[in-house]
């Protein structure tokens, strides 16, 4: 098979490199925090599954002229430089104009209105020194953020239902989609899995079993009040059990697809590669449309460096690449070469 190469240069969509003000940091689990940044241009433009590339302070590497003693002191407080930016899905956005009919998030919605308008949330899982340093910033810090980047989910046709499947922090790529779907009154299911209830990427509370077809869940189970208030049918799973479905989130989506409710559902998934591979397999088995939001080590985010490619199977059967910052992060599950990664 003759290998093909990258897709054509990108569509013209404007990207901003905003100096964003950190508004608040909220711990979500032992290794993840939500961070809210005020960045009006990015907040206004971001769509579901898009991401931002965040420069971990301190900004400068070389010789700098400091305008003031305060500026110099501020630079000393953050000792370690990080060369490349870190990518994060745009988790939620809060915009200035709630009357805008295309605005998928209303600042007055069920999130408690903690973050002011023109804000985006990101979910930061502390996996390395860069994310740890970022998560330790205090409100008031200015951070340079590049975005919005990448492709967005294609919505299901009106009247169709959507099944959102998240492995852990993968939910961050799906929440904007959930909100948009609820706004359009499209039936939305959310299946979110984690290793344990404590590691859920979203705030949880005790609620009722979401749906008769999920009789494996206890009658009184842990769920997400916020999502339920939006109108989402929520089922959580944890490998370690607890008052949720005990097992993998892929088992949940399989049960769903087998049930009557799963008929004609469009699947949207984000999470670890092995999870997505299984979701893609199930989608194929049940002939369900399926889009996935992928991740790979990220370079520029602008489409110029070719670091973030994923193998896809082209229409003629040859192997090609798509850049997760341009053609992705959302790809059709049927085109991804799932055999590519271990």
């Amino acid at each position, binding site marked *: 098979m*003759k*290998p*093909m*190469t*990258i897709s*054509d*240069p*990108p569509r*013209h*969509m*404007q*990207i*901003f*490199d905003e100096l964003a003000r950190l508004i608040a940091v909220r711990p979500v689990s032992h290794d993840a925090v939500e961070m809210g940044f005020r960045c009006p*241009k990015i907040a206004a433009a971001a769509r579901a599954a898009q991401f931002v590339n965040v*420069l971990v302070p301190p*900004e*400068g*590497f*070389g*010789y*700098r*002229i400091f305008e003031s003693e305060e500026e110099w002191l501020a630079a000393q407080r953050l000792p*370690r*430089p*990080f*060369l*490349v*930016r870190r990518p994060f899905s745009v988790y939620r956005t809060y915009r200035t104009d709630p009357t805008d009919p295309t605005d998928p998030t209303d600042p007055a919605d069920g999130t408690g209105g903690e973050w002011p308008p023109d804000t985006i949330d990101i979910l930061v899982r502390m996996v390395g*020194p*860069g994310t740890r340093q970022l998560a330790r910033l205090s409100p008031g810090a200015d951070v*340079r953020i*590049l975005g919005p980047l990448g492709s967005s989910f294609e919505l299901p046709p009106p009247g169709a239902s959507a099944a959102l499947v998240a492995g852990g922090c993968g939910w961050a790529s799906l929440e904007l989609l959930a909100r948009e779907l609820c706004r359009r009154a499209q039936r939305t299911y959310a299946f979110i899995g984690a290793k344990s209830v404590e590691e859920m990427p979203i705030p949880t509370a005790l609620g009722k079993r979401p749906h008769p077809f999920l009789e494996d869940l206890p009658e009184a189970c842990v769920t997400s009040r916020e999502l339920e208030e939006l109108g989402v049918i929520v089922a959580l799973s944890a490998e370690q059990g607890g008052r949720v479905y005990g097992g993998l989130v892929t088992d949940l989506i399989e049960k769903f697809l087998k049930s009557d409710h799963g008929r004609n559902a469009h699947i949207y998934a984000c999470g670890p590669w092995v999870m997505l591979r299984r979701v893609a397999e199930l989608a194929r088995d049940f002939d369900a449309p399926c889009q996935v939001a992928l991740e*790979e*080590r990220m*370079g*520029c985010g*602008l*489409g*110029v*460096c*070719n*670091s*973030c*490619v*994923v193998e896809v199977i082209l229409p003629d059967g040859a*192997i*090609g*690449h798509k850049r997760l910052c341009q053609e992705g992060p959302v790809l059709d599950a049927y085109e991804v070469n799932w055999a*590519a990664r271990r």
Partner: protein
Amino acid sequence: MSEAKVDLSVDFARLKLRNPLVAASGTSGWGEEFARLDGLPLDTFGALVLKSVTLEPRLGNPTPRIVETAGGAGLINSIGLENPGVAKVAQEYVPRLAGSPTVIIGNVAGSTVEEYPAVARKLAESDVIRAIEVNISCPNVKQGGLLFGTDPRAAGEVVAAVRRAVSKPVIAKLTPNVTDIGAIAQACIEAGADALSLTNTFRALAIDVRTRRPLIAHNYGGLSGPAIKPLALMKVHEVYPVARRAKVPILGGGGITCGSDALEFILAGATAFFVGTFLLREASACPRLLGELRALLADQGEKRIGDLVGKLKLFGEAGAD
């Protein structure tokens, strides 16, 4: 002195550049992506070098292709020259750059000597391409994978082949993974290079101590970023006497992140400088970088950047120059 009076224009290998800032190959895409970035008009750059093009399409290396290293000061990359091949680039990508506000320079790569002139000729057909940069950091498959650029004879052969194929300026891009870069530079100059660009990346390794595997899929890659600046600077300094004697300008770089870094390369002998990894990190800061360079010159009462090329004065050196 006022910053506005500082003249950053540069004469480089028969090209007139509005400023000495060049966007390096492999970090600048196909010449139009930066236009999407608010605050980075393409006329920020004096010139922009396109991604390396080969005769046939190349898919490149498996991922992960990059890893941050050196305490956050370096990046190892092993992209693998991914590109759609010269036919597609010449037919589809290059024509889109007609009227580009910056000077576009093509970059050619190959596995055999013969491939280089074939690619160069095709690219140079377009008026959009103002010069050809020759990427000699490629393995010569006919010589057991030895990099062309590590052997003066091989380097000279490739440059000579490109020289015969095009009439536009030919820039030889040197690899620093050599003992005597001066000899490589000399060979390229004798083969007809109009200019030299240096350095490409330094061969490097990063290891995951838990899995005991390299941190990039291709095992080895090239190191770039602030970590290499002192090394690249030394290479420019080594090449300058050779280049100067032949009146061949240097496009120098490696780890530049601010105006002061750029000035270091100019003082070491570069007529123009490039940024690469910096673009991955903060392309939008290029206007700031130029502003810093202007401010430095103004501060020192210097009116023209061209006056400072090679003005490093070593201790123990007799006299100026």
